[in-house]
């Protein structure tokens, strides 16, 4: 009882999160290499050596940071990634925590991510980090609605707010085909939550690293780790909501799930390398004027389709 409902879920989440974060780094390195960027060390050891270097580097401080918030923010971001992954079902029985309201919980993870990322930039009390933080809030407040509508869309045919039910409802046809607008819109949300690639408004180059510009050493390692872990958690949610989760022939459910997560990660990382960073003001307009109405269309499409 304790083992199957407490220890096993905790171990599963920790394992997938850490391994996944490592794979994100490997995959990103491999994609960069394939796109012709110079890389020396092998893609398999690069994340480890970088991590080791960060562990040996001194942790920086700023003149008067909000110490508690500054050190907590990376840890909380990691914790949010863990919550996000905890509600993702790996098979009909292998679900770390099978809450009946897991879709709602995922929505709150997205909202809290904005808070934590803001806190990370704000608490350093330096100009570039501060700009990154406030700029990220504009993005965070814009992507959250898109995510809500898209997720409600997958909840409609399932008649439930539970991810395992959402997966089960895709037995006949996956949501990625049934609601064609859903997955592309949700991928935008994923890039936003992890401020990756085109939506990297928080830690961008024009801010010398933004919210992370004043961070070094172990806190930076945790921040990078949490960001990669959040990508993993997101890929889990995307695979369950749109790619039929554990469903698939021949292979066992959890294997299908991991393969689908990897596919989502590969797409996200590729977008991250191919699309330029969107200018903040343009980003907000795009989100509200293009993507949000599209998510309305997605919801109505999903609604009508669920009734047919």
């Amino acid at each position, binding site marked *: 009882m304790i083992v199957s409902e407490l220890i096993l*879920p905790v171990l599963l989440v*920790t394992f997938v999160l850490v391994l996944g974060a490592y794979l994100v780094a490997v995959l990103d390195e491999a994609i960069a290499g394939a796109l012709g960027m110079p890389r020396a060390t092998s893609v398999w050891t690069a994340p480890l050596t970088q991590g080791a270097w960060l562990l040996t580097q001194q942790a920086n401080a700023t003149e008067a940071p909000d110490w508690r918030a500054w050190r907590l923010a990376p840890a909380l971001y990691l914790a949010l990634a863990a919550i996000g992954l905890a509600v993702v079902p790996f098979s009909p029985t292998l679900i770390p925590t099978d*809450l009946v309201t897991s879709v709602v919980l995922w929505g709150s993870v997205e909202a809290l991510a904005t808070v934590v990322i803001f806190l990370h930039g704000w608490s350093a009390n330096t100009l570039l980090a501060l700009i990154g933080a406030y700029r990220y809030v504009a993005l965070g407040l814009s992507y959250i*609605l898109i995510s809500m509508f898209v997720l409600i869309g997958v909840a409609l045919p399932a008649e439930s707010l539970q991810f395992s039910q959402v997966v089960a409802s895709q037995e006949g046809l996956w949501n990625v085909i049934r609601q064609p607008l859903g997955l592309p819109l949700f991928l935008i949300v994923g890039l936003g939550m992890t401020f990756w690639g085109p939506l990297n408004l928080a830690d961008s180059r024009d801010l010398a690293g933004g919210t992370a510009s004043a961070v070094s050493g172990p806190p930076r390692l945790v921040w990078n780790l949490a960001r990669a872990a959040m990508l993993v958690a997101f890929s889990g949610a995307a695979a369950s909501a749109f790619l039929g989760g554990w469903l698939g022939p021949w292979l066992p459910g959890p294997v299908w799930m991991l393969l689908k997560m990897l596919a989502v990660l590969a797409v996200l990382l590729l977008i991250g390398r191919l699309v330029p960073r969107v200018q903040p003001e343009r980003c*907000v307009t795009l989100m509200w004027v293009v993507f949000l109405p599209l998510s309305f269309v997605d919801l109505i499409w999903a609604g009508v389709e669920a009734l047919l």
Partner: protein
Amino acid sequence: MELLTLFFIVLIAAGLGLLIQWLPMRHQPMPTYPQRAPFLGGGLPETHAWNRYHVRYYPMTLLLIAFEMEMMFMYPWAVVFVEQGMKAVMEMGMFLAILSVGIVYGWREGVFKWQ
């Protein structure tokens, strides 16, 4: 039980995050003041960075509140949607149509601009 498990997962993840920071850092001395100065490419700030920051997208945040309230209705609606059938589609369709008018109006008024 599910919530308890979730609680443990949060605890362990956050604990791990703090531990990775704390373990290597516990013997490190405080960096010197020049090191702690904000990085501005060799330049210096006159003041602390914390201030009454001019958030330029404030009209957008107000628009968001309208939508966030709507989400509260949407969760229960999603669960009973198939049961209610076409009626539910019409209701939510009307709701979204009204909100869309709000977005279009907001756009025209420059709500998404950096004021």
